[in-house]
């Protein structure tokens, strides 16, 4: 009964979304205040219906209702409650339901926190979101209904893929989807402004905090996914250039470009067309990402059970979104004013280079990700593009960006003087030189790559300090300024992590018998043997390793090999000793002798210097985004403007 209610609510929300997509847009176009006023309540209604539907599915998981096909396929009664609840988005259908719930949630947030915006703008933004919501709801209902019944019901569920029975599943998909779906708000603002023909600084200011919040969720989601892969997959890597990782990374690159170009549009009124294109691109790439993950066209760790008809549906949806928004853009773009002029040396130029680099990087990732598909489509054979491609292409494109991060914030808008910039930044150059020479020596051996990366880090961090001193002279900086500094600092921390772990990590696959010791990065692992242990829904072989450094015993490490029963796959659980300067990592391979307890095992040991700085850096970037989005300016100025508009209205009415 409850699943049917959920299904019914979802069906109802399809019609509500259609109303949400049509009435406010028409109302705004024809200037019917009542139709525009319809936008907020209908948004709230669609959110409530989808939330109810989602709650019904969650209930089915909680009560182990195996007459629902989706529940039977992804959960079983032996699973701990937490994983049963997060299994709601452990498969295709449920994760799409989460997608639409988030979309409705973002729309609801816009409805709630946009009291200061003109009614027509709110109506248009919510209308565009309504249309997107309609498209995705149709996708869920017609190709991926999670409420489908299985009659007669199954005795017991098939259980969730053991890989997903991890706290990572609880946080990673929702955060990532918040980011993915949040791009739809930036998109809706851009489209609404295009429809209204009002691409101005006000539009940029309204969409900035939303874009920043979506970006910070995307940042967190990607970082968490990377961390999850690192500790759960047992491969010890933090980024594999897997197509699905790329699918989330491409919108991130474009969104990063977007938040920078929005700054120019807000402050200087330039880059308007470009900003709109970026907003369209960021959302289109989010949809493309969904297509890549869900259609199964690519080989990837994320490509679980797949269905070509779903891929086709998303492809059509993508074509409609891209096609219609580009047509609208083409119709409106020629009328858009160019905004403030700027000299060749100015902050605008530096931000333009930032944007070009990020977009080119995104293009390179897109090419590498889609190339196998293109080659296959033309019948030229099946190929794969390996991580070396992405590394050789991506890293050189990013290096100039790290140089610019220091320069951009000290350059003046409109017209900057190179000499002034040099005078301000020369100490940073000295720090960079010093860092490049000295720091790699402290870390071990001097390597050119590390030296370059650490010189850039020295440059960035010293510049951050200089920028801060410089900025403080002009009075207390705003929250959004501090947000920028924090995010840029996070980038520096991220670069430290990447440079150190890429060049100084040690990895060894070894055969070990109990009593043997293996040493990596100055840390010794003594293998003490393997014993059996039972978990809530699995049996595990638990290894014991004694970690010692300089002759001192530091702690015990217990990597596991878990068996989730027949029909399921074994799982490797790595044991990690984490600290600020390094992780040491041990995981069990296969037993090499018949005697599991006392025989030899294949063992993988890693030494990963500064690896946690990678995720720490991402966290700082996200916090920077939060700080920036919390700036009171976004609320105050809009209020002031609305007040002026009100006065103008009243004056008009009085006249």
């Amino acid at each position: 009964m409850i699943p049917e209610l959920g299904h019914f609510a979802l069906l109802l929300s399809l019609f509500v979304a259609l109303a949400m997509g049509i009435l406010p847009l028409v109302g705004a176009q024809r200037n019917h205040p009542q139709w525009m006023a319809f936008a907020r309540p209908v948004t709230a209604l669609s959110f409530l219906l989808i939330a109810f539907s989602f709650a019904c599915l969650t209930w089915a998981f909680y009560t182990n209702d195996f007459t629902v096909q989706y529940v039977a396929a992804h959960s079983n009664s032996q699973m701990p409650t937490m994983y049963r609840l997060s299994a709601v988005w452990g498969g295709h259908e449920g994760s799409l339901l989460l997608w639409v719930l988030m979309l409705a949630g973002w729309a609801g947030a816009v409805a709630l926190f946009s009291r200061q915006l003109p009614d027509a703008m709110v109506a248009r933004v919510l209308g565009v979101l309504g249309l997107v919501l309609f498209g995705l709801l149709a996708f869920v209902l017609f190709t991926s209904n999670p409420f489908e019944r299985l009659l007669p019901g199954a005795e017991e569920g098939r259980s969730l893929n053991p890989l997903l029975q991890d706290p990572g599943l609880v946080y990673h998909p929702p955060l990532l989807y918040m980011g993915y779906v949040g791009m739809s708000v930036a998109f809706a603002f851009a489209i609404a402004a295009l429809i209204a023909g009002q691409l101005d600084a006000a539009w940029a200011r309204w969409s900035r905090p939303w874009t920043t919040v979506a970006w910070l969720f995307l940042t967190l989601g990607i970082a968490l996914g990377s961390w999850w892969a690192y500790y759960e997959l047992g491969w010890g890597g933090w980024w594999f250039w897997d197509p699905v990782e790329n699918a989330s990374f491409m919108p991130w690159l474009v969104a990063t470009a977007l938040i920078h170009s929005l700054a120019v549009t807000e402050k200087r009124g330039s880059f308007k067309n470009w900003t709109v294109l970026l907003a369209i691109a960021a959302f289109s790439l989010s949809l493309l990402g969904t297509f890549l993950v869900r259609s199964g066209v690519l080989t990837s760790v994320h490509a679980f059970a797949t269905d070509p008809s779903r891929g086709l549906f998303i492809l059509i949806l993508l074509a409609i979104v891209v096609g219609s928004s580009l047509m609208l853009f083409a119709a409106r773009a020629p009328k858009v004013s160019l905004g403030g002029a700027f000299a060749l040396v100015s902050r605008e130029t530096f931000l333009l280079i930032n944007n070009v680099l990020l977009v080119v990087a995104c293009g390179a990732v897109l090419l590498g990700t889609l190339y196998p598909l293109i080659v296959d489509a033309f019948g030229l054979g099946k190929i794969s593009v390996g991580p070396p491609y992405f590394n050789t292409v991506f890293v050189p494109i990013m290096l100039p960006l790290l140089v610019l991060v220091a320069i951009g914030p000290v350059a003046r808008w409109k017209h900057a003087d190179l000499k002034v910039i040099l005078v301000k930044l020369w100490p940073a150059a000295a720090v960079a030189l010093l860092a490049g020479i000295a720091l790699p020596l402290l870390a071990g051996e001097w390597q050119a790559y590390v030296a370059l990366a650490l010189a850039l880090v020295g440059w960035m961090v010293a510049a951050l300090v200089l920028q801060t001193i410089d900025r403080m002279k002009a009075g207390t900086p705003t929250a959004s300024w501090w947000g920028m500094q924090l995010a840029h600092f996070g980038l520096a921390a991220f670069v430290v992590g990447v440079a150190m772990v890429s060049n100084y990590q040690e990895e060894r696959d070894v055969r070990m018998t109990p009593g043997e010791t293996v040493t990596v990065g100055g840390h010794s692992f003594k293998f003490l043997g393997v014993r059996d242990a039972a978990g809530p829904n699995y049996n595990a072989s638990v290894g014991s390793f004694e970690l010692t450094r300089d002759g001192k015993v530091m702690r015990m490490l217990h990597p596991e090999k878990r068996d989730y029963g027949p029909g399921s796959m074994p799982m490797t659980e790595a044991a990690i000793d984490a600290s600020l300067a390094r992780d040491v990592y041990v995981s069990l391979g296969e037993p090499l002798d018949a005697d599991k307890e006392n025989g030899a095992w294949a063992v993988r040991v890693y030494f990963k210097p500064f690896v946690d700085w990678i995720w720490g850096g991402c966290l700082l970037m996200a916090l920077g985004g939060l700080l920036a989005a919390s700036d009171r300016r976004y609320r105050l100025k809009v209020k002031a403007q609305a007040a002026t508009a009100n006065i103008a209205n009243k004056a008009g009415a009085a006249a």
Partner: protein
Amino acid sequence: MKPRQKRIALIVGGLAALGIASAFVLNALDSNIAFFVSPSEIAAGKAPQGKAFRVGGMVKDGSIMRDNLTVSFVITDTASDIKVSYTGILPDLFKEGKGAVAQGRINPDGSFTATEVLAKHDENYMPPEAGHAIEQAQKAQKTIQQ
């Protein structure tokens, strides 16, 4: 600088950057792609020589042999077999009778040394390349029978 000159400078600079970037990207792409080859194609002598490629299919039952960290096994597309050896730890889902894809080079003696072995993370999931290889081989066999 006059606005016109400035615009030209920007455009020329942009095009030059784009050109360099494209040349660089395409070069990197060209040297980092791995072709997918089925065991039948290797048997027919169509394997790329001296270049890494991927081979996929099913891991033949009873073919896995371990010698400490070196594992050897046979990948089959039901029509032809290829012997693969790999040193290191295999993915969790690597099993006899399941799909797998190996990346590496062919040796002069016709065996294959893998640097990477991929098996996917769902027991019902077949890597598309592996499935494709088996499909092709079975199609070919049917044509022969007819």
